[in-house]
């Protein structure tokens, strides 16, 4: 059963999968670090933006929560040697989306305010914090690595054509030699 799902990865596939997972894990870990901040200030971690305690209860911001949860899931997926390479491409798409959301954390944080207040916070110096930039970058890198993991070991049709052409070239040369010899 498992043999139908998994395959023994090559060394390159293993390294790529591991690297993807590491980047994705770090991106997830930064869920607990500042997502927005200011120069020298305390900032607000992504998990607090995801679970924003408002006046009378807990407000759940699904975009932020899933943006950081996705890399964790993808980390688990990409470290496993699936036969089906679409898994890696799907993970790449998800991590790409997660990375974009991470880069938009400031706007997501400010979205709860009306435009006037959001503008005030921008002028006041609220900025995308370095950990969110790192998380977004790592998520994008993980997406790129997942794509590479998906393609790793694949023999491209383009490669076959070239081989055939080379072989064909060889055959033509052989024919030419044969003709010369006949003459």
């Amino acid at each position, binding site marked *: 059963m498992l043999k139908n799902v998994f395959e023994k990865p090559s060394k390159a596939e293993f390294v790529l999968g591991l690297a993807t997972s590491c980047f994705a894990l770090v991106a997830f870990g930064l869920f607990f670090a500042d997502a927005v901040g*200011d120069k020298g200030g305390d900032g607000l971690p992504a998990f607090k933006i995801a679970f924003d305690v408002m006046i009378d209860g807990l407000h759940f911001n699904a975009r932020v929560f899933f943006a950081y949860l996705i890399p964790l899931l993808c980390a688990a997926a990409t470290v496993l040697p699936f036969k089906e390479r679409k898994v890696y491409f799907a993970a790449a798409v998800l991590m790409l989306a997660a990375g974009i959301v991470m880069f938009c954390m400031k706007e997501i944080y400010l979205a709860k305010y009306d435009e006037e*207040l959001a503008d005030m916070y921008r002028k*006041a110096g609220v900025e995308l914090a370095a950990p969110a930039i790192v998380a977004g970058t790592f998520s994008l890198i993980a997406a790129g690595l997942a794509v590479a993991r998906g393609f790793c070991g694949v023999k491209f049709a383009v490669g076959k054509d070239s081989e055939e052409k080379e072989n064909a070239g060889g055959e033509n040369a052989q024919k030419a030699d044969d003709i010369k010899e006949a003459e």
Partner: protein
Amino acid sequence: MMKKRTVFAICIVLSLCFTLGVATACGENPANPQGLDNYLVIDADKEYQSVTGFGASAAWWAQTVPVGSQSATDLAESLYSEEGIALSIYRYNIGGGSWDYNAYNEHGAGDFVVFPEYRNTQSAFIADNYDESLSAAENFADPDNYDFSKDENALEFMKLCATQEGSTVERIILFANSPHYLLTVSGKTNGDYAYQSNLPAENYDAYCEYLIKYLDYVVNGLGLGVEAVSAINEPQHSWGGENAPQEGCHYEPKELAAFYDKFYGYLKEFNEANGTNVKMDVFESGNYDVYKSKGRVMEYIYAMSKYDWFEEIDTISVHSYGSPVSVEARESFVYMLNNLYGDRINIEMSEICYMEAGLDDGMDSALWLSEVMNKDFVNLGARAWCWWMATSCDDYNDGIVTWMWGSENGEVRPTKRYWVMGNYSKFVDTGDKRVEGYVDNASDGVFATVFKKADGRIVVVLTNAGKSATDINLPAGYATLQAWETSADKDLEQVYDGNYGTTYNAPAGSVTTIILSK
């Protein structure tokens, strides 16, 4: 050809050298070139804010101080004279009248409060005189509807503090937690539910009249100078519903700004008529947390900034309750404030207390107080610093002295918080500048707040909250040193007066005021 291992080893060594070099370069402090541990750095030429005073609130307890009693004399001396800790800011509470309907006896102020009924406040407004045929503003504008003898204890105690021989009172601030209950939506000095905006716009004028009547009585009736009136207190808090054990009123930012706009006009008129310069204190924010959802401090400031009068506001009062020991929260607030309004807005810290039931008369809460004061002066840039209630009743740590409320001759017992506040307030005068100063390479719990007096002397408030005594390395350039220590067995006691040395030993769990002279 070099082997791979050799190349790898060279790379590792080079990396280590580079890292070490960077670390060394970054770690060196020009102010402490020898890299000494616990080195007191002082740069007296680098000046920050001017100090505008230290104080405490007279809310709730002052109304129980019998006029002419020994208790009154003892309390006034211990708080507002050089015999005591020389506080300079007196905060009188304009009550919302909850005494009239015994609000906090019925609803309960919590089991920890011995005298919950004392959280009810007296109001000079005579509710029985309220004429339904007139508007609220007309009722509250009528001087015949006021009887200030209802709050005689509190008013007379304030007068005693301000006029006693050797009084250190320099600033009187009148503050209110809630409008009078006859002016609120709920008909009480709390909301019916949490975050209910309890002052309707149609009663803004009436509330202004109420505040002005108090101001007029204190200025013209008692003959005391008033620096500011603070009409709103911690507006972002809920102040309603089940858990409302004291007077309070929630305002949304735009409501707050609209009320201030109205009150500014009343105050201006009063000042013109009386030749005074009473300011509008804004806005006793419950915190300075710019990122917390319930913080909202920037929203209130921004709402006020839409009005012309905001240009005249040079000081904002905040409370340190939100993140009392956070450096970062303070720096975020200051950073944002500066980005929006430049450096024209000063900050005063007008309320904090140690919110724990029981009585901690040891050093723990006193060391905490010193940490809050240090961070408020250094990281928040606070010019003034006020504690919440000056006295408590042995039941809660919100006082700096304990005294049996209502007693004619009750013993005034200072807590260590009182003495530690004195480590600052007795030695740092109005106009003194905070200057650059800190303990470099400090041991855990060791920190300093440094001020410069007009005559050039340096005041260092040195705290060692650690578990062991620490030798502080002193900077060169001074001739004499005086020190007053508060610790487990000393109450602001002078422990040294003599020649300057190279080190000073700070006992574990102590706060010491050191005066350095050249």
